[in-house]
């Protein structure tokens, strides 16, 4: 190049630290703050809320939601949506349990559903990426197909007499429940992958501007396939955590889980318009939701008003995030 590079620091026009800080961390920061505030406030009302035991169960509460929300974030960032995750979790959990009680080695009955999840993701991905059917249509369809199929086959018979050692989610290495490890490790891995892998970046491109992505030689279909397969992977893990927490598995679809997962993702700052967001936010949001749920019990909100308050709090977090974005836009223009 004709002109030698200035060190980033020295070219004043290039870096506006205020903006850098604003854009990179804020959503996560806001969620973290909200979390801390709740913990402090409720803790001051009832000390038991901040007891090590309760904090643990707050983290544990939505761990499997958080894991699924990682995949969901990617799907949404790529400009798509998946409303079939709830049904898929139900199906995979059942699969896992069925394998276990039929004498399949336990580790296999953990692993196979994950692959099954990726397979399902691949199928959905194929419809979306290559047959060009909007993801909401495909997943709405799969929602019914999976659910109806599950009922037809299992008829809701509970799976019990699960072999000893199957309860992965019940393990507590160093006194911390297993799901929490999964949540944290997977979140970190996913975050790194999204930031540092070419495909990870390409997701943002595809979600941000399909046409441009195509012109810069990114194969949209391949990226979408990756996204949905990954989503299937995370749903698979989530379903194992879901299946192994209790001694029995209702071979049924947990109600409303997909909305909870999507909520976690969007409250986590993933723009539903695609092109932006992080998985860290999604996980924090999942934890926050769990903390709120627990807090409302602790501060004796009339159980009838519980859900109203929950909805309100979700709205508030979203608004906070929104105002932040506003501020950034402003600081950008000015």
């Amino acid at each position: 190049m004709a002109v030698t590079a200035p060190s980033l620091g020295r070219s004043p026009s290039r870096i506006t630290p205020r903006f850098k800080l604003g854009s990179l961390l804020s959503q996560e920061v806001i969620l973290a703050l909200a979390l801390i505030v709740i913990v402090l406030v409720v803790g001051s009302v009832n000390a038991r809320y901040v007891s090590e035991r309760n904090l643990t169960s707050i983290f544990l509460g939505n761990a499997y939601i958080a894991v699924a929300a990682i995949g969901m974030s990617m799907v949404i960032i790529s400009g798509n949506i998946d409303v079939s995750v709830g049904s898929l979790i139900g199906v995979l959990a059942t699969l896992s349990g069925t394998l276990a009680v039929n004498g399949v080695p336990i580790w296999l009955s953990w692993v196979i559903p994950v692959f099954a999840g990726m397979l399902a993701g691949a199928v959905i991905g194929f419809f979306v990426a290559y047959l060009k059917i909007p993801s909401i249509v495909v997943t709405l369809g799969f929602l019914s197909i999976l659910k109806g199929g599950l009922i037809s086959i299992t008829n809701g018979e509970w799976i019990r007499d699960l072999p000893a050692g199957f309860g992965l989610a019940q393990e507590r290495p160093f006194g911390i429940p297993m799901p929490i490890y999964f949540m944290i490790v997977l979140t970190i891995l996913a975050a790194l992958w999204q930031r540092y892998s070419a495909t990870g970046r390409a997701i943002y491109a595809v979600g941000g501007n399909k046409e441009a992505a195509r012109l810069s030689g990114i194969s949209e279909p391949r990226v979408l396939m990756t996204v949905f397969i990954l989503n299937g992977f995370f749903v698979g893990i989530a379903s194992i955590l879901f299946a192994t927490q209790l001694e029995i598995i209702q071979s049924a679809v947990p109600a409303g889980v997909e909305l909870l997962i999507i909520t976690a993702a969007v409250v986590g700052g993933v723009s539903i318009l695609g092109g932006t967001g992080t998985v860290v936010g999604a996980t924090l949001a999942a934890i926050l939701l769990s903390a709120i749920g627990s807090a409302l019990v602790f501060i004796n909100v009339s159980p009838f008003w519980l859900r109203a308050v929950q909805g309100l709090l979700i709205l508030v977090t979203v608004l906070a995030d929104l105002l932040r974005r506003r501020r950034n836009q402003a600081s950008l223009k000015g």
Partner: protein
Amino acid sequence: MMQPILELEHISKKFPGVQALTDARFDMRAGEVHALLGENGAGKSTMIKIISGVHKPDTGEIRLDGQRISFNNPREAQAKGIATIYQELSLYPELSVAENIFMGHAPRGMFGAVDWRTMKRRAAEILDSLQITDLDVEAKVGGLTVGKRQRVEIAKALSLNARILIMDEPTAALTEADVQRLFGIVRLLRERNVGIIYISHRLEEVFVLADRVTVLRDGQYVGTDDVKNVTQDKLISMMVGRTIENLFPKLPTEIGKPVLEVRNLWRKPLCRGVSMTLRAGEIVGLAGLVGSGRSEFAQTVFGFTPAQDGEIMVDGKLEKIRNPGEAMSKGIAYVPEDRGTQGLVRQMRIRENVSLAVLRSVSRGGFIDDKQERELSQHAIRQLGIRAFSGEQVVNKLSGGNQQKVVVAKWLASKPKVLIMDEPTRGVDVGAKSEIHRLISELAQQGLAILMISSELPEVLGMSDRVLVMREGRLVAEFERKDATQENVVAAMMRENVEVNVAPSRAAGD
């Protein structure tokens, strides 16, 4: 005569309902700037999209360094060192400048991980080599001005060090000063023996920059020649098939009483206390650098970004304008600068676009009258000679220039008293351009007050009764037609910006 690096022969391409190219040919030598000319819809963009692997030709063959190749997708073309700046900006609004520049080919560190530090550094280098210092490599592209986005596009194309660089109307969105910079870059690249395909509707650029020129007309190959052997009129007749006597047909008009009066209009950040008067029958040109706030000023008058302070008077009556609707009801129309995002609803038919701003006038009691609407669009298509097989055609499928004509038509339909045109001829071919200019004059003659924002000085100077100049949101100069010369207008546009622009990159230099 050296051997061409790229050759296309017998290229034909058909789109639904349109034969975009028929048996066209093109060739390119290393280190030359080869201008590709033609009317709107002549097939230029199609031609280069075939070269860059976006479209596959129906017939014909492409040879690179003498041997036959065919690209299945843009990536393959890029791999062969063919980089393209497309006519329609293609950026990721939510991503940073650096990422936009390197999307698809980011520098990798260990484990093939994206190396962000290097990426930002390289991005900074490229921007510096273009002497662009007012861009934060970490800024989101979404918030940038049209001009700035355009520069990101160029940096993006340069980031894969290409041996063939295609530029489809790169200067359309740029102001004079930026054009000069761009030329600098192009020459620099030519030194580096890069072959450059250059599409533009500004003929004067061709003469300044190009070595050879190829002309297409209605998808057919008309001819190729060295620039030194051709005259402007020759080119025009090659393109249009006829001669155009006068590019700037300014008709004499008698100027009436003030129609639009703006007093100390504020809209932060880019409209800072602007005052101006616009009289009936008058054409006022508004010049300025990109980001000088002309658009924001116009959009403030139009109520798109309502004024924070100041007065707007129409026909001497003080008016409160809080949104475009109100502005239109007061007889103010605004032809936006960015046809893609602001001017058109691309997925809709020509008919629907033309009537969109004036639905009320083609409807009774809220119900749309098909017949009136169709007449409106047919009239528009004829009046501006829009190249389309019917008003039912979807605007998306029109060539860039024809889309621009639709935008203009749309706003003429609102029969305004005051017509603000932001870059009215951006990306419009000479033929259409002179038609639009004639139109502007005629409208002025009919007593319309016209404010013409343009980054094309010849246009401003050629068409305006008065020329205003904006800089950093302020009105800094006003010239009567007679003493509005290139020199002093540019001077007014540039003053002390000169330091602003150059200083940092110098600092960078040492």
